[in-house]
């Protein structure tokens, strides 16, 4: 007892907080370092520093004036938004059917939808390429909106079904007694209650669409139609050996800061949405 006991407790506590600190630093450091780098210019870039030494917005200026980056940002916003709206629209009614109406084959259907979200994208790439070319939307944002549905739709259906399943039975029954048809129940009774779920699902789907790379790489080939991930991946300098790290970091920061902010603001909702889709799933 006495001093030995306190020392042990202190060490445990210290070790715990050291671990916590380690986790936080490791998580945040690369992002911090990217910001650091983006604020350097010229030869500064090539000296390794751990703390901010310069504050130059050169890189950011170049990101926005050279090349088609602003256009890429716009493309990404457009594609992600439209694909999410489309998916939500199709998913709301579908998840009502899947969560509130008992019919034969419902379980199988749910499993199939889940399975589709597990498709490796590469497996549909060839077939999608054919369809997209056939529809004449190759190298347009529509190609991506079309293709992204393959993962936004199953995901939104799955998560919304889980949320809708949890809505109380009595409210639906009261609505039925009041004379509401299924459509009325969805639009006037359930949707108002579900809009937090819609926001969360929409947000998660938006992030997934925003980050998508393979389809974007394959179905858009010109600078003007590219989305952000592809633009950042292909950012290169004049010659083969000249990689413009400063500009790359600046572009990365521009893209990441709003995303990080969004995620931090909607933390709780996102975590519950992820686990609803993942753990139950």
């Amino acid at each position, binding site marked *: 007892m006495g001093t030995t006991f306190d020392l042990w407790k202190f060490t445990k506590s210290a070790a715990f907080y050291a671990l*916590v600190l380690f986790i936080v630093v490791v998580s*945040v450091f690369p992002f911090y370092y990217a910001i650091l780098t983006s604020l350097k210019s010229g030869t500064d870039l090539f000296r390794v520093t751990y703390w901010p030494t310069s504050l130059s917005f050169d890189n950011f200026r170049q990101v926005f004036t050279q090349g088609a980056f602003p256009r890429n940002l716009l493309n990404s916003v457009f594609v992600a938004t439209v694909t999410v709206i489309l998916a939500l629209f199709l998913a709301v009614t579908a998840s009502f059917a899947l969560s509130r109406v008992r019919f034969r084959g419902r379980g199988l259907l749910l499993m199939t939808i889940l399975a589709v979200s597990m498709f490796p994208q*590469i*497996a549909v790439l060839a077939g999608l390429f054919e369809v997209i070319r056939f529809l004449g939307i190759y190298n347009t944002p529509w190609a991506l909106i079309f293709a992204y549905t393959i993962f936004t*739709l199953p995901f939104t259906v799955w998560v919304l079904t889980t949320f809708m399943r949890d809505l109380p039975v009595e409210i639906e029954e009261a609505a039925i007694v009041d004379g509401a048809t299924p459509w009325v129940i969805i639009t006037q009774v359930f949707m108002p209650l579900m809009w937090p779920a819609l926001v969360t699902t929409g947000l998660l789907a938006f992030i997934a669409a925003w980050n998508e790379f393979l389809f974007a790489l394959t179905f858009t080939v010109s600078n003007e139609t590219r989305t*952000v*991930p592809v633009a*950042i991946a292909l950012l290169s300098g004049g010659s083969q050996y000249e990689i413009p790290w400063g500009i790359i970091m600046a572009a990365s920061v521009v893209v990441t800061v709003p995303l990080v902010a969004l995620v931090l603001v909607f933390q709780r909702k996102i975590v519950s949405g992820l*686990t609803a889709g993942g753990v139950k799933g």
Partner: protein
Amino acid sequence: MATDAMAPITSASTPKIKSELLQQRVRAARWFLVPMLIALAIVAGWPLMRSIWFSFTDATLNDLYGAEWVGFGNYLRWQVLESGTVRYRGVLADPDWWNAVWNTVRFAFWSVLWETVLGMIVALVLNAEFRGRGIVRAAILIPWAIPTIVSARMWGWMLNDQFGIINDLGMKLGLLAAPVAWTASADTAMTAVLIVDIWKTTPFMALLILAGLQMIPKDIYEAAEIDGVHPVKQFFKITLPLVRPALMVAIIFRVLDALRIFDLIYVLTPNSRSTKTMSVLAQENLFQFNNFAEGSTQSTLLFLLIAIFTILYIWLGKVNFEGGDR
């Protein structure tokens, strides 16, 4: 109380007069499902069929419709030469393919292993109550929020052989004798990829595991403490068994994801034989080298592999639902 709303019978007993209410709901359900199903069929069903179809033909990028059937030729074919030796051709006889398979499996194994272990540690930390817990939870969301491509470039910069901070730090701490060409060198490329993926995905695993941990009632731990059970033993005898269902689901989910990996490798270690996974190889063949049929074959094989795992995942998930819940 069953949360499964309206429990009118559909199959069990056939009522003499079927209620209009039931009919109305089932009819509505069909209308609600059809648009979604059509969308999925067009966007996923048909392309999948076509991709598989292409693998049985000699299609090329420029001549998709003129493709002729070659059966399993793309998968495996052989010629018997005059000298008597048999020459095998096709994806299944291609050393590049098997190298890609090996890379994929290697990657999946190590990444899931580390992400589970580290995820568990982070989850345990987050499950404990301490001041600043909110900050930690926010902090770990950052790696997850950053787009994969951006992570790849950020880490690419940090792992740069000449100007990278990792090399700098390593040398300053005496861990490295000389700068390592992390992404370029064949020995370390996979390690580099693993570092980035683990950094990026551990938070997700941690969150899934945390959800499972939070379902364990606190009083079990209190009872164990009163009984004098050592915390480490508590972990192995109480925590682990009770979190197992959530853990298994999370692991299979991750394995599926890991097997499909493309983005990170394409951007961080392009053209590296030691990290080329099945997806990367297939994409290359499809669109860069104009080996369309070969690429289709490879992507179909990957699909088969994933399909087997998906069935496993669903089966395990269903078992958990019925068995694992209280």
